[in-house]
């Protein structure tokens, strides 16, 4: 039996009122849902809240789940929607969409330097994580969700499009702009933190 088949059997049992089957589904999928919350919101309490809201909503809406996508994809969709609601309430400064749109053009007029070595060799991994988290947090929610689902969770463009109910071409555009922006923020950070030999002359 494949993993998805196993999920499908548990979903059917849960639909028929078997709470234990639903708990087994939680056991199988909670790692992905909790980590998605962590990666989108960078906060353990928020990740725990997202996880709880997701499973309560999934349990309530189980009769509506038709199996057109996998149960995990359906959960990702619910969790991402709850996370998007939280992100939209955040007070931090975010980069404007206009700025993201102009990045490609802006790049052409700037010097592009490679990063000669891995910064992990020069700085603490935690410092790098904090720099990356700050950069990801300054992405508007609709860009942040695409970057996290595609580049960190490793979901395909088609899966991300399905989860966010947007076209594949919108996923590609948002993904490209997010990557360019994060690359720029990391370049700035490496220069400011003075990691020697990191920026190739």
């Amino acid at each position, binding site marked *: 039996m494949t993993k998805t088949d196993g999920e499908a059997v548990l979903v059917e049992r849960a639909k028929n009122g078997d709470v234990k089957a639903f708990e087994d589904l*939680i056991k199988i999928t909670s790692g992905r849902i909790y980590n998605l919350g962590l990666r989108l919101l960078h906060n353990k309490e928020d990740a725990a809240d997202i*996880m709880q809201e997701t499973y309560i909503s999934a349990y309530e809406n189980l009769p509506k789940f038709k199996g057109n996508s996998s149960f995990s994809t359906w959960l990702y969709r619910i969790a991402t929607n709850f996370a998007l609601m939280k992100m939209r309430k955040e007070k931090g400064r975010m980069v404007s969409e206009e700025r993201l749109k102009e990045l490609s053009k802006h790049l*052409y007029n700037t010097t592009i330097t490679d*990063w000669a070595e891995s910064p992990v060799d020069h700085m603490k991994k935690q410092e790098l994580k904090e720099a990356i988290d700050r950069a990801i947090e300054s992405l508007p929610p609709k860009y942040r969700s695409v970057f996290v689902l595609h580049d*960190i969770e490793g979901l395909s463009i088609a899966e991300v499009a399905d989860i966010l109910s947007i076209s594949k071409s919108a996923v590609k555009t948002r993904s490209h702009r997010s990557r360019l922006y994060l690359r720029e923020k990391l370049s700035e950070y490496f220069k400011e933190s003075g990691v020697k030999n990191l920026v190739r002359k």
Partner: protein
Amino acid sequence: MNRRFDCEEIFRMLSGYIDDEIDTMMREVMEEHIRDCERCLSLLHTLEKTIAFSRETHRRKKVPERVVKKVYYEIRIRYKR
């Protein structure tokens, strides 16, 4: 061929290249350009490293047992049969 136009085109397609969403013919054209263009090569490398560092610093963490138990509890209490 206009060099400036080439670089701009390459910039726009680099994510597609990384995601393997570019057809073979276009891939070859891009690789030919990138081989001779330090700017495009640097951009490609730094984009790939941006993704790699983001993944590397966000490895999956174990869900705390109390968080899972709380979800079980909430569901049991709400939907007790």
